[in-house]
């Protein structure tokens, strides 16, 4: 008893104090994070435990806040592109696209056809890399150490491919207002063509060895059931809402670029649990491969950057617009306001991880601690994207 009393004397900070006010008798308040292996960065989750059961959980965010939105107000549009690669290191190219797309929509810039295809190819490659990163890290959360090594083996191939046109491996700043920085050369196209069958041969192996494993199935089936209503209330998008049967995909429902010309399925799952979200992401990788393949077949010759593309000092015309793309984690939205001055007036970044995280407090109530970790992992959070 005395030892527990000692523990309570360490009151903690503002959040912990407020969280403790509603604590029930005899419960244990635990800080998961900001430094914790399964929060993938600096997310902090306050949990109130009764034994192994989570009574309440509350995410505390802001440990990786980097003022991306404020920085937009002191930069010109072209200078702001590198920031986008750093918002979400998992699917950096989608953020590139969201911002560049917003500027193009406001300024009415037409992107050359080849550039559109190059954008889709790189974005989808990056999406596969993002899902592979999630897959490996999620299984690490569930105590399986090996899959991440295989996932990174495949991811490495994608990064090698993306390295040649973009010059980066993680925080891509590849898109330009009016196109992309560099065309895909012949070697790069060849490497992508070789990668597609390779990845297609890997996915069944992952299914056989990992997805169908009985321990894994018991860990994720029926865990973290999100009713469609829960997803709608919190604005969850991407694989999280598609795992609950909501077939919402920005690529199909608010089409942009050449996606309407491409044939792909939006995978959904009616399971609504962590298994559903898992299956959706695994299927999305296969769909992305299809998209890339048909893009390579359809891709025309031509420029990849519009003539007279904006220079760094170029001013965004006065106005206000919104542009959304489908990122690895869900709907990435950029709300851009410009007063016609040198810098943009306001940029609001709508990040999917933020909305997806917000349902965690409700979804984790009453689960086991290990399940809470499994639910947190199944949301596929990228912490810098939450805090921006």
């Amino acid at each position, binding site marked *: 008893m005395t*030892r527990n009393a*000692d*523990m309570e004397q360490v009151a903690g900070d503002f959040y912990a104090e407020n969280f403790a006010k509603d604590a029930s008798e005899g419960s*244990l308040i*635990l800080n998961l994070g900001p430094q*914790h*292996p*399964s929060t993938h960065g600096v997310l902090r989750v306050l949990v109130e*435990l009764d*034994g*192994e059961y989570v009574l309440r959980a509350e995410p505390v965010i802001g440990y990786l806040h980097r003022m991306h939105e404020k920085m937009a107000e002191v930069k010109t549009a072209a200078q702001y592109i590198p920031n986008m690669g750093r918002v979400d290191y998992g699917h950096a190219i989608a953020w590139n696209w969201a911002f560049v797309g917003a500027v193009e929509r406001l300024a009415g810039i037409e992107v050359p056809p080849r550039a559109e295809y190059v954008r889709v190819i790189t974005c989808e490659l990056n999406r596969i890399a993002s899902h592979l990163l999630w897959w490996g890290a999620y*299984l*690490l*959360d*569930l*105590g*399986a*150490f*090996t899959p991440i*090594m*295989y996932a990174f*083996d495949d991811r490495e191939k994608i990064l090698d491919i993306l390295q040649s046109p973009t010059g980066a491996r993680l925080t891509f700043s590849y898109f330009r207002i009016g196109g992309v920085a560099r065309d895909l050369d012949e070697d790069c196209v060849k490497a992508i063509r070789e990668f597609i069958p390779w990845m297609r041969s890997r996915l069944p192996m992952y299914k056989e060895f990992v997805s169908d*494993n009985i*321990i*894994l199935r*018991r*860990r994720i089936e029926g865990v973290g059931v999100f009713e469609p209503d829960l997803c709608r209330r919190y604005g969850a998008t991407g694989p999280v809402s598609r795992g609950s049967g909501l077939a919402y995909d920005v690529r199909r429902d608010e089409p942009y670029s050449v996606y309407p010309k491409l044939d792909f399925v939006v995978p959904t799952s009616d399971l609504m649990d962590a298994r559903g979200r898992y299956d959706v992401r695994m299927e999305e990788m296969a769909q992305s491969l299809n998209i890339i393949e048909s893009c390579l077949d359809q891709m025309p010759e031509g420029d990849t950057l519009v003539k007279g593309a904006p220079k760094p000092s170029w001013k965004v015309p006065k106005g206000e617009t919104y542009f959304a793309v489908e990122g690895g984690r869900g709907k990435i939205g950029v709300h851009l306001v410009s007063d016609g001055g040198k810098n943009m007036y306001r940029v609001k970044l709508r990040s999917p991880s933020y909305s997806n995280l917000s349902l965690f407090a409700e979804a984790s109530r009453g689960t*086991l*601690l*290990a*399940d809470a*970790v499994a639910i947190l992992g199944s949301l596929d959070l990228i912490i810098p994207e939450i805090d921006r």
Partner: protein
Amino acid sequence: MPTELIRILISLVAFAAAVGLIALVMVWVERKVCGHIQRRPGPYEVGPWGLLQPLADALKLMGKQLVMPDQADPFLYWLAPILVFVPVLLLYLPLPVGDGLYALDINLGVLLIIAFAGFTGLSMILGGWAQNNKYALLGAARTVSQSVAYEIPMLLSVLAVCFVSGSLNMAAVVKEQGTWPWNWNVMTQPLAFVIYIVSALGETNRAPFDLPEAESELTAGYHTEYSGMGFGMFFLAEYANMIVVASVATVLFLGGWQGPVLPGPLWFLLKVSLLVLLFVFFRWTYPRVRFDQLLNINWKWLMPLAVANLALTAFFVKVAQYAFVK
């Protein structure tokens, strides 16, 4: 009596040295095997094929500062790592490594091992409690329910073998089995063997049952705050325990040191190594089970099966007695 005491003391020193050495080899094997499972070479910089890597790691651990958190209980905090390791050495006493090659010829050898194995769980609880850390406390709480639960089916499966052999003396159990695999107890008691291996994984906290130290949930579980050799002792004890459970499985189920052509101790080592390798494979290929599932496996599957197996064994042993011995 004094000669026996001297014999025990000498063996304990030998065991301490052997366990240290075997643990180093085990660390190397574990890292190499895990490396190759994960399509990477594993350690290869220090010494040929990285053989000296565990030695370098051990030296690094010894050189590290021993840190104790504020408000921890100093006595219990330092007692736990010692208490986790010392009883492990006693577990080796009744193990017959070869024909007549054992430290202590005791009629209750199996019982001695089962009894002293409980110390590991105890010291984990002490360590987890003394650290004044919530993660460690949760890890300790998990250790309690896990080791208590898994000791029972383990004991029951071991008892089944002892019924068949009619002895708790390990040397006698080995002698009772023959040279060839079909003479071994694993043939007459396959269910007990499977139950034993699963409970052994639970008892030694090896993946997929490594819940007391589940690092994705509890950072490092019961040894969260330990640094340097404090952690090193827990680490060493884990490997030493693995070898004990593998040795007991070898003695009880796989004919101990018996085998064709090769000398006894070599057979013993070979069988133990194979079992330990199996444990290593389990760890690097399976996800971790959840805590309630872990207990369900035990109470709903292992326990009834072990009890049924024991009852059947007892029945057949008795019938056999009537039929043949009279």
